[in-house]
């Protein structure tokens, strides 16, 4: 069976390997430059005692940065071009009838094929993620944004789970629809929909977020790469204040809530009059966030969810192909 899988899919495997190799060469070469840049910047800022203000520094070229961000779509590729055609192309061409009339049970045929596809998907997702994670290491250290959606999703272990999910989704869609193009379309739509729903609805709540209230006149920044979910200002009654764009703010509080003295002060003097300080003390700022030390817990939970979804899809495929008539 393995020989058949290789013979049938070797073009896909070789194209995938070539893309991966080209990506690796590019990332390793530019990644070494990024590491050197980072090292030099660290030396320079240490000498001038200005290491805190490097958030604006972007390392690496923008072209490579764009390529890095586009690896968000890499797991989908394996679902579209490896997963979706796996059963659908054979069903369309009728070649399942050839394979299933050899002395090989459908169960073994399916197990071996799915096994190799899942392995290929895991290698694909894992290799890309490892390269991206390494390349972005210095930027993560500078920007402290590894937890942000869009960056969380291309690093660590989640890309492996996304790839496995994508290929399983493609296989299941192909097994149910038995046509390549519809299977590809369903895989693409399903992958985007599931990823978006989980980012928007589930991921912020994997663990109860931490909310910190602080004086509007002081600042608060959690340590490390935390994930900010919400921030704002609450008034004296505890109600959150609307913060439209086109009005004046003093320390995040709309000027209309404050005595006129505050407005005048903010234009000129540095020390606000006591009446203004008194008024501001009734307002509190808050930040709702997921602390940086939950990063790997979140990676683990997200990985678990997508692995479970992949397992369900594989089960659906097995039922569709083994229980139904061939």
């Amino acid at each position: 069976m393995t020989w058949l899988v290789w013979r049938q899919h070797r073009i896909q495997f070789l194209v995938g390997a070539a893309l991966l190799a080209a990506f690796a060469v590019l990332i390793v070469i530019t990644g070494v430059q990024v590491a050197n840049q980072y090292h030099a910047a660290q030396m320079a800022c240490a000498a001038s005692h200005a290491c805190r203000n490097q958030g604006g520094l972007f390392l690496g070229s923008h072209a490579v940065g764009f390529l890095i961000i586009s690896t968000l779509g890499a797991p989908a590729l394996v679902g579209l071009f490896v997963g979706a055609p796996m059963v659908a192309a054979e069903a369309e061409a009728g070649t399942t009838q050839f394979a299933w009339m050899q002395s090989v049970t459908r169960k073994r045929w399916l197990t071996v094929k799915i096994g190799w596809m899942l392995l290929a998907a895991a290698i694909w997702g894992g290799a890309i993620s490892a390269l991206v994670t390494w390349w972005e290491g210095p930027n993560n250290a500078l920007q402290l944004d590894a937890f942000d959606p869009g960056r969380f999703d291309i690093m660590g272990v989640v890309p492996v789970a996304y790839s496995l999910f994508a290929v399983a989704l493609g296989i299941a869609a192909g097994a149910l629809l038995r046509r390549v193009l519809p299977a590809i379309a369903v895989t693409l739509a399903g992958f985007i929909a599931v990823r978006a729903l989980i980012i928007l609805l589930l991921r912020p709540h994997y663990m109860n977020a931490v909310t910190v209230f602080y004086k509007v006149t002081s600042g608060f920044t959690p340590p490390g790469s935390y994930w900010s979910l919400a921030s704002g200002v609450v008034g004296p009654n505890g109600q959150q204040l609307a913060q439209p764009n086109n009005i004046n703010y003093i320390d995040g509080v709309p000027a209309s809530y404050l005595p006129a003295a505050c407005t005048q002060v903010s234009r000129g003097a540095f020390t606000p009059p006591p009446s203004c300080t008194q008024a501001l003390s009734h307002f509190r700022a808050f930040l709702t966030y997921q602390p940086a030390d939950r990063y790997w817990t979140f990676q683990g939970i997200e990985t678990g969810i997508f692995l479970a979804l992949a397992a369900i899809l594989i089960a659906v495929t097995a039922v569709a192909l083994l229980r139904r008539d061939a």
Partner: protein
Amino acid sequence: MIPMHEVPGNALPGPAAIETTGLTKRYGKVTALSGCTVSVPEGRICALIGPNGAGKTTLLRLLAGLSRPTAGQVTVNGTTPRQDPAFLADIGFLAQEIPLYRRLSAEDHIRVGAHLNPRWDAESVRERLTGLKIPLDRAVGKLSGGQRAQVALALILAKQPRLLLLDEPVAALDPLARRNFLGLVADLERVCDHLIMLASSRVQLCGDLEELLAEHRILIGPRKDTTAIERSHRVVQINRTPRQTTLLVRLNGPVADPAFEASDVSLEELVLGYMGQDAPSEPAQLTTVGEEQ
């Protein structure tokens, strides 16, 4: 009719290669096969014929284990068709669509078969295809339809199955290739010794071909009342012209009426008679049972 094989007339029937009882297959509300009860002994070449949509492919797929019956029993080579390497090794099924991997060459297919089958006669495929001047190293998608059918057939034979199921085996072949098909003259009458006829998803006839032919007669007589004949024999078909009446009957004893002249029936007449007014359907499927492929 020239029998190609010695068919033991009254000898004990061998073990059945195919045995079905009340086999029924429904797809939703559509009944593809209904109450099919047939039996084919080992060592036979059995033709399965019937008009389009009669349920021929359905029956073959049930026998091959590619689909499961809605009701009834099916036994092939002594067991129920199932997903088991030993069962599959004994079945050679060539589907109507001639399924092959279009981008793979015949040689690739030979290697696939070698990996997937316990018995595999790779040399026979090479010999067969070389003899037919079919290139072994060209992608089968680039071969002609007839060549593809030959490749598929050679691959099925390489499995050395005990039961060979061919669905529309000559549909893709040119007349010359038909003559060479299976190394036999693809003249149904001369190849097969057993017949199953389906129509409207039911079995119309099943049995040894010689016996079936012996049981049927064509009666030609004056245009007159035929109730007497209809009472004692089973009339399959009646054709009336102003001058005479032609009947195809399944005999139930000798024909008593001297006004009717009885003559032997040919296979074609038998088939067309049972198919009624349907357009003459090509003897569509050929089921070969046993070793003498």
